[in-house]
């Protein structure tokens, strides 16, 4: 099982689906960010898995995964900064009250 690509991919799919649900369902902006992290991890897992079962790729998969992590870190930084900035203005972390982009 640990030698089957499908297993890894299914695992990634599960993680991704959970992340999707979280992103769509949670009201708290930070919870949404967490969900995004979950989804990113799912993708990362998929990348690593593909790399493992494609010998010609060698260590490339790991490298890509590392890059994704770096970018994710950047994303988290900015995302959280935005949440904090909005929170400071609106005094709430709940996204459905951030509706001034409506008009």
């Amino acid at each position, binding site marked *: 099982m*640990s030698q089957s690509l*499908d297993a890894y991919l299914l695992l990634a799919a*599960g993680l991704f689906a959970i992340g999707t649900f979280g992103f769509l*369902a949670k009201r708290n902006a930070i919870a949404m960010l967490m969900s995004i992290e*979950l989804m990113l991890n799912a993708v990362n897992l998929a990348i690593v898995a593909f790399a493992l079962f494609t010998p010609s790729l060698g260590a490339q998969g*790991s490298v890509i995964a590392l890059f994704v992590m770096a970018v994710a870190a950047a994303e988290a*930084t900015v995302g*959280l900064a935005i949440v904090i900035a909005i929170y400071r203005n609106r005094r709430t972390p709940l996204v459905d009250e951030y509706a001034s982009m409506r008009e």
Partner: protein
Amino acid sequence: MSLPETMPYTGWRWDDLVFLALAGVMLGSALLVVLSRNIIRSGLFMVLSFLGLAGIYALAGSPIVAAAQVLVYIGAISVLILFAVMLTQSKAGPAALVFQRQAWIAAIASVVLLGLIGASILLTDFPAAEALPTVHETREVAFLIFDANVFAFEVVSLLLLAAVVGGIFIARRDESADEEGA
């Protein structure tokens, strides 16, 4: 030092067992992340989920990625998120307000999505060899990062720098506004 290749009685390989265990931990805690009504608890479960994933990486033969996972996700991002939680959680919202009204649609959509991805995974005949994953040498990864992909690496470092600066800029207290307030 010499454990049998397979588990007694079941004939399962140890690896598989570990894999299953880790996967279970990871998925379970991930579910708890999204289902938990307490945001702090969500954060902690997320750490657990990341830990499980790191284990899977290690198991799959990518120790570097596993290490990075621990360092970056658990060490940096999770902490960051927890800090953010603490900064914004002055008044804990009522429990009823954790989920959107569309949560049940989202749940269905997620399940369908899972089904779809799963189906496509199972239906696809991947050409990759079903060989045992090989452990990649750290050395090889280093060469790839600092030699072949050094430009991308530099770009990423710039990106991180920009993110840090940007983060500070965005989250910075508007001093003039503060003075007005004071």
